[in-house]
């Protein structure tokens, strides 16, 4: 396939891979009417060749600014960008081998689908025959065959989305940039496009940077996720690292649901943390945090709930790697595939739990609302994280 710029490579991030883009100490300050706004605070990041990297964060965290700096639409106040080792500082956006897919698609309304796709190739003064060939190939990859003569307004949202992607990949960019491209689609189409986008990216093996505020999108598509908050990077890692080993309360809270349990440090030695939690003590591996700012998080699916006739008589237990505490079931929300439970522990702490259902184990097997329960939580599921909001520099 001549349209592909690299062989197939659905490879995960690997430190030995070559670095495609290096972001070095990039800072961005906007001068607004209300004063200076530091949108990015010295960002360092390496984007591996061929990987699908997602920048995830709430609105206003600087993720779009970072993407626009990569594209060249914004110039950093400080810092540098290196593409394959060469600085991009003085390269204008149209000379950067990157193509962007926009949230609004930004299809040219006065051009047909084929003209939209051929636009970048015409600009690059590619021969008519090759333009035709490459356009046809990309139309078939994107499942747009037969739509070449339509105007963008005559297409459905999903089709427009695919044209936007086709227009970007056909120029064989070194890096593909996505600015929340799925957020204008309805939920069902979004899920479908999500896997399609991922399939095409794998097929082409093109290095991709994808900005979103949707954590499930990030989890489903990415090789690696960069979680951002207030202009800095909170954590970089694979989706399971981000989910299972969050390094901060922000990450734990932003990705998925997390129970946050207040703890105090009893002792800290030899890489082991001993924490006072729920009237008992547990020991966790020390992720290297300073002792004053530690709290623990626990995913709801790690909380097991079973009936207990008299929770008031129950004494918290920590045996064979399981922590057992009693409480009352305060809320039950049945969602079909699972049920969300809210438990009030004896000391007043509220705990969220999720019970997955199968044909053999349904909601009828769960305690009813108001029942006395005991919850068991594997110690290995607890994660000590930094509790402090990062100090604003």
């Amino acid at each position: 396939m001549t349209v592909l710029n690299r062989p197939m490579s659905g490879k995960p991030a690997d430190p030995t891979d070559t670095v495609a883009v290096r972001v070095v100490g990039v800072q961005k300050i906007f001068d607004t009417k209300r004063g200076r706004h530091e949108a990015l605070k010295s960002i360092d990041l390496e984007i591996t060749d061929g990987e699908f990297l997602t920048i995830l964060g709430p609105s206003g965290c600087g993720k779009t600014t970072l993407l626009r700096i990569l594209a060249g639409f914004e110039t950093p106040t400080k810092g540098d960008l290196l593409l394959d080792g060469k600085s991009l500082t003085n390269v204008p956006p149209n000379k950067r081998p990157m193509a962007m897919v926009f949230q609004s698609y930004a299809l040219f309304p006065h051009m047909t689908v084929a003209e939209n796709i051929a636009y970048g190739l015409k600009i690059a003064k590619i021969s008519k025959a090759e333009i035709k060939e490459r356009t046809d190939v990309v139309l078939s990859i994107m499942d747009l065959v037969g739509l070449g003569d339509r105007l963008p307004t005559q297409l459905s949202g999903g089709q427009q989305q695919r044209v936007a992607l086709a227009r970007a990949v056909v120029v064989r960019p070194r890096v593909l940039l996505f600015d929340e491209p799925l957020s204008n689609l309805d939920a069902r189409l979004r899920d479908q496009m999500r896997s399609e986008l991922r399939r095409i990216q794998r097929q082409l093996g093109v290095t991709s940077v994808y900005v979103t505020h949707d954590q499930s999108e990030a989890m489903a598509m990415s090789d690696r996720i960069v979680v951002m908050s207030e202009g800095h990077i909170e954590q970089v890692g694979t989706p399971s690292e981000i989910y299972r080993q969050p390094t901060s309360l922000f990450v734990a809270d932003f990705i998925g649901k997390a129970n946050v349990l207040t703890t105090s440090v009893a002792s800290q030695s030899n890489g082991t943390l001993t924490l006072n939690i729920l009237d008992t003590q547990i020991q966790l591996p020390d992720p290297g945090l300073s002792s004053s700012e530690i709290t623990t998080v626990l995913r709801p699916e790690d909380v097991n709930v079973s009936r207990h006739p008299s929770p008031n008589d129950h004494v918290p237990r920590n045996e064979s790697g399981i922590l057992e505490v009693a409480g009352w079931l305060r809320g039950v929300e049945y969602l079909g595939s699972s049920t969300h439970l809210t438990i009030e522990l004896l000391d007043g702490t509220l705990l969220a739990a999720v019970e997955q259902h199968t044909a053999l184990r349904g909601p009828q097997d769960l305690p009813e609302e108001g029942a006395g329960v005991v919850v068991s939580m594997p110690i290995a599921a607890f994660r000590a994280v930094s509790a402090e909001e990062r100090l604003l520099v």
Partner: protein
Amino acid sequence: MTTNQHKSAPSSPLQPLRRLAGSIKAQGSFGVAIAVALLIVGGFVIYPTIRIIARSLGVKGLEQWTELLSSGTTLSVLRNTVVLGVLSGLLGTFAGLVMALVQVRTKFRFKRTLHIISLLPVISPPFAVSMSILSLFGRSGLISKDLFGVRYDISGLDGLLLALSISFMPVAYLNFVGMLQSFDGALEEAANDLGGSLVHRFRTIVIPLLAPGIANSFLLIFVSAIADLGNPIVLGGSNFEVLSTGIYLAIVGEFNQPKAAVFSVMLLLPSLLIFAAQYFWLNKKQYVTITGKPVGTPKPVEQRNVLIPLYTIALVITAAIVMIYGYIVVGAFTQVWNIDFTPTLENFIGAMNGASREAMLDTLKLAAISTPLAAFSGLVIAFVITQREFKGRGLLDFASVLGVAVPGIIIGVGLLLAYNAPLFGGLIPKLQGTATILVLAFTVRALPGVVRVAVGALNQLSKNLEEASISLGATPAQTFRKIILPLIRPALFSSLIWSFARSMTSLSPIILLVTPEWRIFTERILNDAQQGRYGDAAAKSMVLVTVILIAIGFLSLVTGFKVSNDDSSFAK
């Protein structure tokens, strides 16, 4: 990466200029365009205005200030101007609102006709209305004397009020039609569901939402009315002098430039104040935004107690417009307007031959140069204002629409004062008396309208389109040519028509600049009117309107665009 880190020469007076130059340079190929735009606005709007102010503050100017401000005549001129402006503003706004309400909120059967009638004054030459009014209601007017036998002379405030409210009513009309159409019917329905009566609904929901439109229309008509020259010359009579005629007479009759400068400043002050208020205050207000999602259109009004007064007023306005414009046609085709009604084509033969023909050709030539010039520079300015970030952007935005606020006669005076001698040691030759200065006057006059139309069109373009093109490898210039220009072609067409019609019909900015070599058609019409040859003037007015309509047809043929039903782009 700050590119313009100059050596910090402490407090050099050239520092801001150098920074501006640096930021223009950073814009690459657009730098040139920005520089041209700044040059046009700076050289032919701002600089002449400054010259007027300077002149009025010179020794002779200051003498004039003391003399004029202590004379009763001047005070009455000032009072006349303000009274005329305020009353025309109120009447014109009211008339426009009524016509717009009938157009948008009723089931009136001949809406299309009504729409055209409401817009008729847009393309008529500046004082045709006045002549017709004088012939109908003047001392020996058809209606006042012949029909009712009253000895009533409408010239003065009464006539001017009628002429100006009708002339500027379309401004308000288009403004209100646009606003009423974009109303969210759901709002009103909600109020209805909550039990509000029609009148109550109108008072509590419609009027507050229209308030910015009312203020806007009033101010625009006020500024246009006090700046108008043609109508007061014809209709003012001997006892109703306003500032604009004062300026005109000071230059043409008394050769007293300092006096003209002082009058100009008096006229400029309220115009600029209102403009500034509008620019900084009204523009900031939240307008109804068009989301593209269908909103419930409000139900047409059907209550008779509302419809009857509404229709009555609309009928009176329509009748007045039809009568006044119809009577121009009568005057054009009869021997002596108002006296000898024998049909004749003599007036037209005169209008299309001799000096009149030359004036028409001259005007067409000048407009043929100024039209593309205004359209192009207006587009560039609009593009720069909407799509680019650079230092001085706000200034350019402000200055380019400033032309709206500066009355035409003042632009004339300013150009006269600024270019009556060579500048920069002969680098810029004396422009007074040349065709160049006439073209410049036309261009500067048409510019704000073009900028407004183009800004409106460009603001509807998402910035992402430009970025998408650039991200696919196109240069900014390629992007402009291949993406932006095709998408704003309708706006381009509107701008061309606008600037052409504006050039062909404008009088006040060029009346002081015409020379025997370059005659202007509107000036010929005024000349006829002043000498009482109303029939000739009426015929010429009709010729002018016909030429404009033909040109519009020609333009739409060439560019492949129809004049859309939505004429709102012509507002203001």
